[in-house]
C-alpha cells in the first residue's frame, strides 16, 4: 500500500512529533477564566456585572476599613484623626475593648483559666473528632466535663470530683448489679443511687474534703462572665449535652412503650412549639418568682438548661430523620444476630443513623451557637449585649459597624470551622464509593 502512496504523497513523516505545550488559551488561569467566566455572552455579562458589583462594594468597604485609627481613645479623636464624619472606621474601640468582648468582666488576673479551659477543650475533643489522635487522650475527654466548670467558676475541686463519683457509682451498679438484680433493676438502682449521692451526700463530703485540703481556685461569679466567653460556655455545654439527650429523645419517640413515647413526643413538640426567647424569659424571670427569695439558682445555669432543652428537641428530630432513613433490614439484622436493644443501637443502628444526620446535627449546633446571642435580651452581656454597653460609654456613643463587624468575625470563624469539620467528617465516613 505504501508504494501507491509513495507516488501521490510527497512527504511522509516517519517519527512522532514531540509533544507541544497546549496553547496558552487552553491552560492555566486564562483557560479557567474562558471556561468558567466568559463561556458565552450571557455568562460574560453576568461576570462583568458581578465584577462591577464587587468593585463597588470594595471601593466603599476598603477605604473605610483601612483607616489609621487604632490608637484613638474616643470617637471624637477618631474624627479628628481621619478628618471625616463617616468615611472611615474607628478601630480604637476594638483596641480598647477587645478583651472585654472576649472575656466580659472576668477578672484580669484569672483570665488564664478560660484560656486553659479552651485549650483543654480542643485537646479533649480532638480524639472524638479525629481518629488519628492517640486514644489515651480520651481519658482527658472523660474528665473534661468536670474540669471545665471548676476552671471557669473556681471553688474547691472536690465538688466536681464528688459529682463525677456519682457517675462512677452508677456505672459500678450497672456493671456488677446486672447479675444480681437483673438489667432493669440495676439500671433503676444506678439512677436512684446517683441521685441520692448528688442530692444528699456529694456536697457535705466535698465540704469535708475541702476543709482538710482546699485545692480551691478563686470563685468567679456568673455575673462576671460575658462576651464571647459567655457565648462559648453556653454553646459548648449545650452542644455537649443536647446530642446525648437528643439521641435518647429520638429513640424514645420511636419506642413501643406508650408512656416513654408519649413523654418524648410531648416534650419535643412542646419545646419546638415555643420560641427560644420565651424559654429564656422563663429562665430569667419566671423561675425567679418560683424560687425562694435569696436562693441564687445561677442565671447562666438556668440559661444553659433552657438552651440545652431547646436544642435537644431539635436534635431529636434530626436524629429521628436519620433513624427513619435506615432500611428495616438493618433493625432485623440486629435482631437476627441476637443482639439486645442497646447492643443493636450501639453497634448497628446509631453509627449509621448518626452518619446520615451529620449535616443536620452540625447545622443545629451552628444555629444553637448563634442563638446564644439572644441572651442579651434578658440582660446577660454576651458580645451583642456588650456592644450596647460599650456604646453607652460617652467616648464611644455612635460606634456601630466596627463593633458588630468584630463580633461577626468572631462568630464567623467559629461557625465556619464547625461547618468545614462536618464536611470533612462526611467525606471520611462516606461508604458509597
Amino acid at each position: 500500500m505504501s508504494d501507491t502512496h509513495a507516488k501521490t504523497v510527497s512527504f511522509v513523516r516517519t517519527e512522532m512529533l514531540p509533544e507541544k505545550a497546549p496553547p496558552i488559551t487552553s491552560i492555566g488561569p486564562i483557560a479557567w477564566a474562558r471556561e468558567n467566566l466568559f463561556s458565552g455572552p450571557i455568562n460574560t455579562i453576568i461576570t462583568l456585572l458581578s465584577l462591577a458589583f464587587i468593585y463597588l462594594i470594595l471601593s466603599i468597604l476598603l477605604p473605610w476599613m483601612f483607616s489609621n485609627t487604632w490608637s484613638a481613645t474616643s470617637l471624637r479623636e477618631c474624627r479628628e484623626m481621619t478628618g471625616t464624619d463617616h468615611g472611615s472606621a474607628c478601630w480604637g474601640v476594638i483596641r480598647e475593648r477587645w478583651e472585654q468582648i472576649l472575656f466580659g468582666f472576668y477578672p484580669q488576673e484569672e483570665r488564664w483559666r478560660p484560656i486553659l479551659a479552651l485549650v483543654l477543650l480542643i485537646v479533649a475533643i480532638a480524639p472524638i473528632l479525629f481518629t488519628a489522635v492517640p486514644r489515651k487522650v480520651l481519658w482527658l475527654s472523660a474528665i473534661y466535663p468536670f474540669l471545665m466548670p471548676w476552671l471557669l467558676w473556681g471553688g474547691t475541686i472536690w465538688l466536681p470530683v464528688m459529682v463525677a463519683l456519682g457517675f462512677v457509682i452508677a456505672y459500678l451498679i450497672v456493671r456488677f448489679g446486672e447479675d444480681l438484680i437483673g438489667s432493669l433493676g440495676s439500671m433503676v438502682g444506678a439512677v436512684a443511687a446517683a441521685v441520692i449521692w448528688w442530692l444528699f451526700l456529694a456536697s457535705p463530703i466535698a465540704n469535708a474534703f475541702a476543709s482538710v485540703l482546699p485545692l480551691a481556685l478563686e470563685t468567679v461569679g456568673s455575673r462576671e462572665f460575658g462576651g464571647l466567653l459567655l457565648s462559648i460556655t453556653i454553646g459548648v455545654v449545650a452542644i455537649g449535652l443536647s446530642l446525648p439527650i437528643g439521641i435518647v429523645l429520638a429513640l424514645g419517640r420511636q419506642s413501643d412503650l406508650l408512656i416513654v413515647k408519649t413523654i418524648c413526643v410531648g416534650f419535643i413538640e412542646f419545646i419546638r412549639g415555643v420560641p427560644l426567647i420565651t424559654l429564656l424569659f422563663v429562665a430569667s424571670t419566671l423561675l425567679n418568682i418560683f424560687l425562694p427569695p435569696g436562693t441564687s439558682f445561677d442565671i447562666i445555669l438556668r440559661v444553659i438548661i433552657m438552651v440545652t432543652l431547646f436544642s435537644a428537641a431539635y436534635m431529636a428530630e434530626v436524629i429521628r430523620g436519620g433513624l427513619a432513613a435506615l432500611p428495616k433490614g438493618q433493625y432485623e439484622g440486629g435482631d437476627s444476630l441476637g443482639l439486645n436493644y442497646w447492643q443493636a443501637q450501639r453497634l448497628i443502628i446509631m453509627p449509621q443513623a448518626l452518619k446520615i444526620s451529620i449535616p443536620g446535627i452540625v447545622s443545629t449546633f451552628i444555629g444553637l451557637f448563634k442563638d446564644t446571642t439572644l441572651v442579651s435580651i434578658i440582660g446577660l452581656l454576651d458580645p451583642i449585649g456588650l456592644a450596647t454597653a460599650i456604646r453607652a460609654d460617652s467616648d464611644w456613643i455612635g460606634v456601630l459597624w466596627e463593633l458588630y463587624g468584630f463580633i461577626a468575625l468572631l462568630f464567623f470563624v467559629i461557625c465556619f470551622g464547625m461547618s468545614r469539620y462536618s464536611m470533612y467528617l462526611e467525606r471520611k465516613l462516606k461508604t458509597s464509593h
Partner: protein
Amino acid sequence: MKKSVFIGALTVAGLAAAAAPAATLDEVKARGTLNCGVSTGVPGFEAPNADGEWEGFDVDVCRAVAAAVLNDAKAVEFVPTTGKTRFTALASGEVDMLSRVTTWTFSRDVDLKFEFVGVNYYDGQGFMVPKELGVTSATELDGATVCIQTGTTTELNLADYFRVNNMSYEPVPIETQTEAQQQYLAGACDVYTTDSSALASVRSSFADTSAHVILPEIISKEPLGPLVRHGDNEWGDIVRWTLNALIAAEELGVTSANIGELSAAPTDNPEINRLLGTEGNLGEMMGLDAQWAVRAISAGGNFGESFERHIGENTPIGLARGLNAQWTAGGLMYSPPFR
C-alpha cells in the same frame, strides 16, 4: 436525670417561697455585696468602662448605698437588666434595689408594688431637629415625620401633644436608640423625639453637634429614680435617705474634698453635724452607724459632683442642671431635713 433534678428543685423552691423573706439589710450584710440592678447601658447614667467597672450617675447611687451599708463602695454586684426584666428582677429579690433610669409612675409604684425612694433626675420628652430646618419651637412641627421608639410612653406622649396642639405628624417607628440615630442622620425623619437626656447623648455622638438643635419644649414628666420592693420599709428608708444625704450634702456645701475636715469634729452648722454623725444618732435609727452618710458622700461625691462628673456640662453629654438644680438655685432637688 437533669430534668428530674430541675423539676424537683422547682417544687422545693415553690414550697420554700411561701416562707417570709428576711430583712434586706440583713441579707445584704450577710452576703457582703449589694446587688444593684442597672440597665445594659445608658450614656452617662450607667456603662462599664474598659476595665469592666460600672460608672455613671445611677451607678453612684448604688455605690453610695453600698458604702453606707457595707463600708465599701466597691462591694456592689451590678446586675444588668433590660426594660423587660427589670421589674421581675427586683420583685423576685434577684436585686436589692434598681437604679436604672426608671420613670416613677403611679402604676409602677402602686400596682407593681414597688417603692420609688426619690428622684435623682428629672427628665422629660423633648425634640431634636436639624438646624437647617429653621424650626425653633415644637409648635412649628405640623406635618413633620417623627422617629419614635415603638411601645414606649414617648409614643403616647407624642400623640397626645400633637392632638392637643391640633397638629399632624407622620411616625417613623424604630426599635432602639441606635437605630433612631442612624435613621435620623440618614434623613429618614425630620424630628427625633425621646427623653431629653437621651437626646443630648445622641447629639453628643454626632460629628457636627452644632447642626442639630434640641427644641425648648418638654412635653412629658419623666422623674427617674431608684426603687426598692414594697414591704421592707427599713431598707427603703436606707436607700431613700442615702439619696437624700447626697442631695442635702450639695445643698449644705459638703463635698468629697472637704468632708474629711467637716466630719472630723462638730461644725457650727447643726444640720451638717447631724448629717455627718458628729451630733445626734440618725444613723443608729436606721440600723447603721453614725458615719454612714460620710461614707456615702465620699464614695462618689455629693449629688452635684456626681452630676458634673458623669452628665454635666463639661462632659460630652453636656446636660445643664435645669430642673435638677438644688431648690435654692431654682431647681427641684429638695431633700427633707436631716433632723
